[in-house]
């Protein structure tokens, strides 16, 4: 854990009055191991630590602060800066329904998160419409319908129709239904599946979403950057929802995805139930990654 790492770092700098290149490099080695154990992408780690190293070498040693503590603080601050800012905003439309497109890999938690967002927005006084655009997974439509029932919001479904058409018609129908928020649940897909990436791109083209969220499992390892980059290229993401954080994972994938896409992490999933959605707090996530 990084607490152990930071103790080791402190010991390394003990009795030293300033940060030297040699002891910084050694300390960075220990931090690198901790970040890799936290699933931060290797290349992202390298860049991040090179950045920290530059800052640490150029920094004035503060009076009354041990170099070790100062070094640790600079890592923590760099991490918080990278993870932030805190931004749970939704680009609500002034007139017409606000459209939110949910995309991501198989099993990441999209359908469940659609339910959670509908629950949250309904409690905020909005009128959400859920759209079942996954016509491929067995009982996916049924799953969203059950969630819609639990929340008390309508679900637009057209079994067997093409997802881009379903979504387009749903947005048109939203006005009739008096819905001001349309949440599009899409099928899980691989970023290397050209047909399915074209399909989700077509959904975005036909519905002009105001928010496009990548739903990412917080337990994802090194590969998180590859899928995130592809989804960002294809869809121009506006945010990320990090799910299943209640697993105890350090969640380093969040750092990797933030660094590589620059898109804000807006919400986190911390359980299966509808109320288990929270705003993302960069400082808390930084502490978590650091162990």
């Amino acid at each position, binding site marked *: 854990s990084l607490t152990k790492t930071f103790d080791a770092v402190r010991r390394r700098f003990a009795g030293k009055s300033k940060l030297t290149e040699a002891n910084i490099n050694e300390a960075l080695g220990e931090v690198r*191991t901790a970040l*890799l*154990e*936290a*699933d931060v*992408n*290797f*290349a992202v780690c390298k860049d991040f630590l090179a950045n920290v190293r530059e800052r640490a070498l150029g920094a004035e040693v503060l009076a009354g602060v041990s170099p070790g503590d100062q070094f640790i603080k600079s890592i923590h601050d760099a991490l918080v800066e990278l993870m932030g800012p805190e931004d749970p905003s939704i680009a609500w439309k002034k007139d017409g329904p606000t459209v939110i497109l949910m995309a991501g*890999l*198989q*099993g*990441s*938690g999209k359908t469940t998160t659609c*339910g959670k967002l509908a629950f949250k927005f309904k409690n905020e006084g909005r009128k959400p419409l859920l759209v079942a655009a996954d016509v*491929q*997974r*067995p*009982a*996916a439509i*049924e*799953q969203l*319908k*059950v*969630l819609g029932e*639990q929340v008390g919001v309508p679900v637009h479904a057209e079994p067997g129709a093409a997802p881009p058409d379903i979504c387009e018609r749903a947005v048109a129908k939203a006005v009739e239904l008096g819905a001001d928020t349309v949440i599009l649940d899409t099928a899980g897909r*691989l*970023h*290397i599946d050209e047909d399915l990436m074209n399909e989700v791109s077509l959904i975005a083209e036909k519905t002009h979403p105001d928010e496009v969220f990548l739903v990412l*499992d917080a*337990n*994802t*390892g*090194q*590969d*998180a950057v*590859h*899928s995130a980059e592809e989804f960002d290229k294809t869809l121009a993401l506006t945010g990320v929802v990090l799910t*299943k954080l*209640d*697993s*105890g*994972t*350090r969640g*380093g*994938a969040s750092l990797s995805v933030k660094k590589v896409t620059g898109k804000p992490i807006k919400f986190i999933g911390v359980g*299966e139930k509808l109320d288990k959605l929270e705003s993302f707090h960069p400082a808390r996530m930084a502490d978590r990654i650091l162990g």
Partner: protein
Amino acid sequence: ILPFGRDLDDELIDEMENYLYTADIGPRTVQVVMEQVRQAYKDRTIKTTDECFEHLKSILKGVMSSDKTSLVTPQQPPLVILVAGVNGSGKTTSIAKLCKYFRDRDKKVLLAAADTFRAAAVEQLTIWADRLGADIVKKQQGADPASVAFDACDAARARGVDVLIVDTAGRLHTQKNLMQELEKIRRVIGKKIEGAPHETLLILDANNGQNAIAQAQEFGKSLELTGLFLTKLDGTAKGGAVIGIRHQVDVPVKFIGIGESAEDIEEFDADAFVEALFA
């Protein structure tokens, strides 16, 4: 990864180490493996990049190999398979694949829909059972999962099926009460059918990072795992966390999932898996 046919040096060995990290082989395991590689370099038993590759592959193949990768055959039918794993790992779909695997071999299969919690979980498994010509035992939403397993064991014997596969709800290893629920399901199965469950498979998502190790350890404490089923290897994730698992938990990988259809299943091949890590 490394330039072919070059003489090894410390820098190239470091590059090899860095590559292992990118495959989700965590620091602890990488350090153990690289120690052996660096020792071989010191002893001059490997001198070129090619030799380094081959040495590394043979170390990893050693870790991943097992003589217990096939499914057990119980003294008398049914073979009972209990399936568990964290949320969204691919349990229900992997059960469909196992079902098809047995149906292709003319076996009579019964599925138990013991995920009584998640929205439309029973409907999802029912669709697969219908598609694949398997029977299914299910109860109302919210029923005690152990009671579904109980009824399924009775039905399996009464109907003379060859294989009974029990689907369970996704759960995190950090949820104590849900892990206890899983232990109860297992106990109930064991009381109903002697020696059952004959196989207990942990479904692991190849996209997972180091948390997969905690999953295997904790699920292993609640259940006697007999095999791992590594899913979603058709993506770009290498599934290297399973190497760290094999170092700490003596449970072999028995199957891999390579897609969303019922035929996207393969018996685990350690050599192929290690070769793919370096592809």
